[in-house]
């Protein structure tokens, strides 16, 4: 069962190590909804807003992305995307899937 997928390393953005880079594969919407399974519409709204916000900030499919730094206390993280730096909490990064270079 060798297929192309076996040669790819896919991680969620919060799992990246400092200095690792890759490209954005997708937003894992399903995982998000399953995690918070029975929970409220409010959460769903917040998630959609976050996603919309991130899209505007350049987190689109295929964008190059790099984990630059982790804050001294372990969270949030500093990310390089589209030529600039942005911070995200790990909990907000965990729905973004990244394929490592």
């Amino acid at each position: 069962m060798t297929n192309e997928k076996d040669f790819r390393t896919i991680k969620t953005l919060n799992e990246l190590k400092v200095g690792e880079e890759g490209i954005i594969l997708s937003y894992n919407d399903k995982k998000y909804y399953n995690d918070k399974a029975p929970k409220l519409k409010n959460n769903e709204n917040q998630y959609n807003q976050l996603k919309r916000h991130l899209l505007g900030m350049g987190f689109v499919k295929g964008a190059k992305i790099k984990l630059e730094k982790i804050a001294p206390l372990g969270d949030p993280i500093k990310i390089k995307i589209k030529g600039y730096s942005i911070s995200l909490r790990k909990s907000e990064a965990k729905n973004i899937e990244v394929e490592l270079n």
Partner: protein
Amino acid sequence: MKIKVGFAGNPNVGKTTLFNYLTGLRQHVGNWPGKTVEKAEGHLNFKSSRIDIVDLPGNYALSAHSIEEIVSRDFIVDENSDVIVNVIDANNLERNLYLTTQMMELGANLVIAINMNKFAKKRGYKIDMENLSSLLGVPVVEIEANDGSGKEKLLNTIEKSKENPIDSSEKLVYGRELQEHLLQLQKIIEEDKNLLDTPSSWTAIKLLENDEIISRKVEKSFIKDKIFKEVEKIGKHFHDVFNESSEEVIANYRYAFIDGLLNEVVTNPEVEMPTITEKIDRIVLNRILGLPIFLIIMWLIFQITFTIGTPLKEPFEYLFALIGKITLGFLGENIFSSFIVDGLINGVGGVLVFIPIIFLMFLMISILEDSGYLARAAFIMDRIMHKLVGLHGKSFIPMILGFGCGVPGIMATRTMEHERDRILTMLLIPFMSCTARLPIYTLFVAVFFTAYQGEVIFSLYLIGIIIAIIVATILKRVIFKGITTPFVMELPTYKLPSFKGVLIHTWEKTYGFIRKAGTIILAASVIIWVLGSFPVGVEYGSHESLIGQIGNLASPLFAPLGFGYWQPTVALISGVAAKEVVVSTFSSLFGGSGDVSGIGLALQNIFTPLTAFTFLIFILLYIPCFSFLATVKKESNSWKWPSILLCTTIITAYTVSFVVYHIGLLIGFR
């Protein structure tokens, strides 16, 4: 000729620097009608034209999910502006142009001003401006906001654009797949003439993005069913083809358009050197050094603001005392002179003495903000603030400033983008024990806790912090249910703050404080004076005066807390005006000689150590002062939040004092 111009662009691109450079002090900062978003307007004369400029909020997009974005797009759509200048950072074209595409979707009469070219060139980026301009169909001007180069050319271009407006949507072409579906949708939208006050292409795109405001507008159309059916159909189609929502598809196409553009226009350097920003961040955000550096900077701000600012209060205090004396000598002692001196001069003076502190604080914050460090501070503190009180990293600085004075603390919340974070922070700042409360603590510990003065005062500061955490947890449950603000925040490149910009910011904000807080304080001072000096003939603030009678009447309320006497009640009431007044009230109630040992004896007749401590807790937690409430009113732009603040602080103070007093009694303190 009159030209109305809006400045739009991402945050941190030098938009406001350019605005300051062009308009200088010919500007006015207020709020957008009915919004808490700051609106800066200014004007300049250029040749024979008068150019009026509105500095729009910094945005990354024009969706409907933040007030700032709504304000900006309403300005572009509704207000009859002649030209929109889109300020763009040459070092970050890709993301900056994302906003540009959205303004082009609106067909705005755009001029693009590309800033920070020197820095970009130094890094090895080459931008073909002419080509960019012809590909976008929009005039492009190279500028340098901090030294004003390109200013003439920009103003000339603005003038030309006013005379020959363009429809910037013409050259904006998205991929065929999206374009075809947009056209279909547009055709349906165009059947209803009421929907054509904005370009149908914009309405179509916004509908596919599930934009709430546009959807609500279309709800009113007689063909809404037809429109929404088509939107749903396209959404489903996109989902089948791309496995993505229509929002994602549109974002992808916008970036695809930009990518295509940049391929033709920009030459990248062969090797990317680490920038100064990256080098600084290596130290400032270092695992081990990051936190200590942050704490040192905080300590410096606190020191500079309060150790330089507090002595500067004295000349102001002296000045007002002098004015009072002269007035008194001029008018003689009568009810009118008492009104002028005790009421107006003391009341207003009591607030104006804060000017040096406020000014210094704003100076510090402006430098921090303009240099780019503020975002790093928030980055470092977010973990603690988020875990402990469910707040944003940026709320740390206002809280720290609250230990000095709550008023600059509230004003420092302006650095936060989300209103709910700002409000929650404002509601918590009162519990940070401010310096005005310190004289009261000092007076009481000297009388009641001679052996443990430092420990008692320290415990009060600590109790304040613990109570803030508890109150935050409750407020999160009650008022701000289930809301957390994401920490999606740009970490901008470091910049040397411009002298002019920092001074303008500082002055604007200080002036705002004087003007707005001043008026409310004036009213409050008059009320306190009236209560203290009527009925005619009583000694100011005595038992027989109105305030004394109110104290008498209200004192049973404080009996459950152990200090149900009229004097502490009067002190608490006048302390609502300002905490500094509490000590002076005690001294005037107990003989007025200012003799501390005399006051001490009198206090011992009323308080026991336990009730004294309870009283201090109440002082720590109840309404900070009029200036505080006035500032919250001004900053939140409504009476709702100062009212809520009034309730939360009083309820908290009463509850905690009650608990402390009764637990104290149970343990056996007296």
